């Protein structure tokens, strides 16, 4: 402290010519010091702009254009013209987009609580001192997360396809009708099952790690005050890991709105997954399969805004609640 004050005191007032001439090096490094963080950030910024900002901006710009013909049979090359918000109007007025949106919301309302509930229960069990084989359980619950999402969907698709599924074979050997996992009314639940299987262990591990950070003294004093293990879980552990819970919920919410991999893979196994099943599949279908980059861009931009609004609202709500 003392040396620092001395140094500051020893440096001459700004604008003194002799002093600047006498100590050129520190002066230069001082006046450009603001630059250094940005210099270190530059590699990130270059990649971020090239691979995120620029494509995103380009998509948004494209969403205001469309390929148009001008009457006739349309058998001549189209022109790309500025159409303002036409693509947005078209996308927003399409009930398919909203049906898909309602579908992912319904999915989230059921799947997220189930998965988070399971993750929390398992994390609490794992954290309680009595659990044996802790390492084994931790690993086996986490392993599905190590399986890439597409592979997980293919794996479960095998269990779901009636004619090749071992589950269906068991049902048939008991002379029962095998359940239809890929029917129009069941396929969403089947996807929820895959997601839960995949991500329960991951969330569990996050919660478990957060519990490890809770100071042991809290438990000691709680026990001295006569709190049971269930009480400790209810009144200490869960409130103490609420930031981790909130983070897990936020990621789950975003992931749900962007539901794509699992239905896209299962689409190859069943007609119940339509090209408009989720908003992301719809955007992919319009933008890539139907080659309407312009309308596809508009749908992607709409979904981006909706996801942002939902995440923001969620954060505000939970911050107020805590």
């Amino acid at each position, binding site marked *: 402290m003392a040396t620092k004050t001395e140094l500051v005191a020893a440096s001459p007032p700004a604008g003194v010519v002799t002093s600047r001439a006498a100590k050129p090096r520190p002066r230069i490094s001082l006046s450009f010091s603001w630059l250094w963080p940005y210099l270190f950030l530059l590699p990130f910024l270059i990649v971020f702009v090239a691979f995120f900002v620029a494509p995103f901006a*380009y998509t948004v710009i494209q969403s205001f254009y469309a390929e148009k013909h001008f*009457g006739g049979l349309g058998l001549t090359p189209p022109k790309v013209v500025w159409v303002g918000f036409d693509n947005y109007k078209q996308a927003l007025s399409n009930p398919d987009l909203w049906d898909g949106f309602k579908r992912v919301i319904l999915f989230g309302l059921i799947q997220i609580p189930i998965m988070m509930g399971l993750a929390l229960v398992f994390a609490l069990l794992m954290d309680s001192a009595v659990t044996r084989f802790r390492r084994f359980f931790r690993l086996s619950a986490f392993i599905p997360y190590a399986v890439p*999402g597409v592979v997980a969907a293919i794996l479960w698709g095998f269990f779901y396809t009636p004619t090749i599924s071992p589950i269906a074979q068991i049902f048939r050997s008991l002379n029962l009708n095998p359940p239809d996992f890929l029917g129009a009314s069941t396929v969403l639940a089947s996807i929820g099952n895959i997601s839960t299987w995949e*991500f329960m262990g991951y969330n569990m591990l996050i919660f478990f790690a957060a519990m490890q950070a809770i100071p042991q003294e809290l438990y000691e004093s709680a026990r001295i005050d006569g709190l049971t293990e269930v009480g400790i879980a209810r009144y200490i552990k869960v409130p103490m890991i609420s930031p981790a819970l909130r983070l897990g919920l936020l990621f789950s919410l975003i*992931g749900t709105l962007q539901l794509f991999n699992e239905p896209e893979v299962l689409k190859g196994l069943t007609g119940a997954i339509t*090209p408009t099943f989720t908003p992301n599949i719809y955007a992919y279908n319009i933008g890539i399969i*139907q*080659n309407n980059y312009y309308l596809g861009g508009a749908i992607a931009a709409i979904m981006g805004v909706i996801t942002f609004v939902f995440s923001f609202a969620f954060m505000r709500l939970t911050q107020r609640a805590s």
Partner: protein
Amino acid sequence: MQHTPRRTIASIGSVVVVALSLFLAACGGGGSGSSSGGVVNLTFWSFNQQITEQADKFNATHPNIHVTAIKQPSGFGQYYPKVLAAIKAGDAPDVALIEYQYVPTFVSKGALVDLTPYGANDVKSQFDPGAWALESINGAFYGYPQDTGPEGLFYNAAIFKKAGITSPPKTWDEYAADAKKIHALGKNVYISAFSATNTGWYQALNWQAGANWFSTNGNSWVIDVNSAKSQQVAAFWDNLISQGLVDTNSADGDFQPGWNNALDHGTIASWISAVWGQGVIKGNAADTKGQWAVAPLPQWTAGNKDTGAWGGSGISVITGTKHPKEAAEFAQWYLTNPDSLKIGVNEIGWYPSNLQARQTALTTPDPFFAGSQSGGQIVDQVFANENLLSGWAFPPDLDAVTNFQGNDFNTAITNHLSLASQLPAIQNQIINDLTSQGISATAGS
């Protein structure tokens, strides 16, 4: 899905990759065709297997042109988006296989080169006139016809026999009666899957019935999905579906793993498919070798031989090529040269649109299809004896049509509505889609 940074990053990543590829597509420049040292280099895309063999033959006899053939994946939503994205990127192949049903869609994107100035009409007489017509639009000609896809009925004769059916159905009434007999064999046994989201086979049945969904009247499209003939076809299938005589389980639709398995295990007894379907059955139902047979498509009027087509392809020159003359020369050589056609017929399994080559395809019995005739049928001959009706045309927005029909039929089956009730909505969606692109379209009925 979801919940994790990894997942979120992955999905952001995928969006970014898609966006970036569009971005790069727009920035990219320069065609693939280039010339070095007097040799013109061309790229050729197809989803057939042995195309490099054919290109080698061409290169050996054409020292000034070098064709690089690249086999592409063929799945729905893979090949055509890739071709169109490549065109947009200025990195398209010079020559590509385009199925007939996609030709108007590609023309409406300005993606195909008119081959008339490059001597197309000199070889017109060598080709099936019906296939030639599918490549001819408004006096221009957009690709040499490679193979044709008339529909017929592939059936597992062993299962038909078990159900007490001795000869394949000649009319649709007989088909409906046979459907009942076959379903009586067991509650999991069906005469056929009804594939709601695969639309090509169903459109061909409308083609056979004399419907014409997409025709032109002067400078406007006439969309006629809801005609009396189309209603007749829909009502026929509605009847079978409501009685539970066809397998509507979406996991058992054409080409799904469940369907492959059902063919192989004899729980789906037949398939309405095009001539190229023989390869699909041989590949998927190897255990039932010798049990299969092929018959002409059942008829609305007994004694007729009418059929429609599902698929079939031509070889087109893609807009943006720097060497349209050489590309057109290769396309023409590819489907008129006897060596190339021989590979196509014998190794790829074309039912060729080149009439001379077709004769060579009609000679060999296939022991896989020995269900009705010991030693096997000459499969292509059955299709050659059919009458592929002329007059059907394809729309300039095929992907959208496929989506509308697949979606609405799927919804109908899920909610126990009739297919017939969906036809007006499908027609309206097609008209709206076309008009929103600035293309004139009116309702036929």
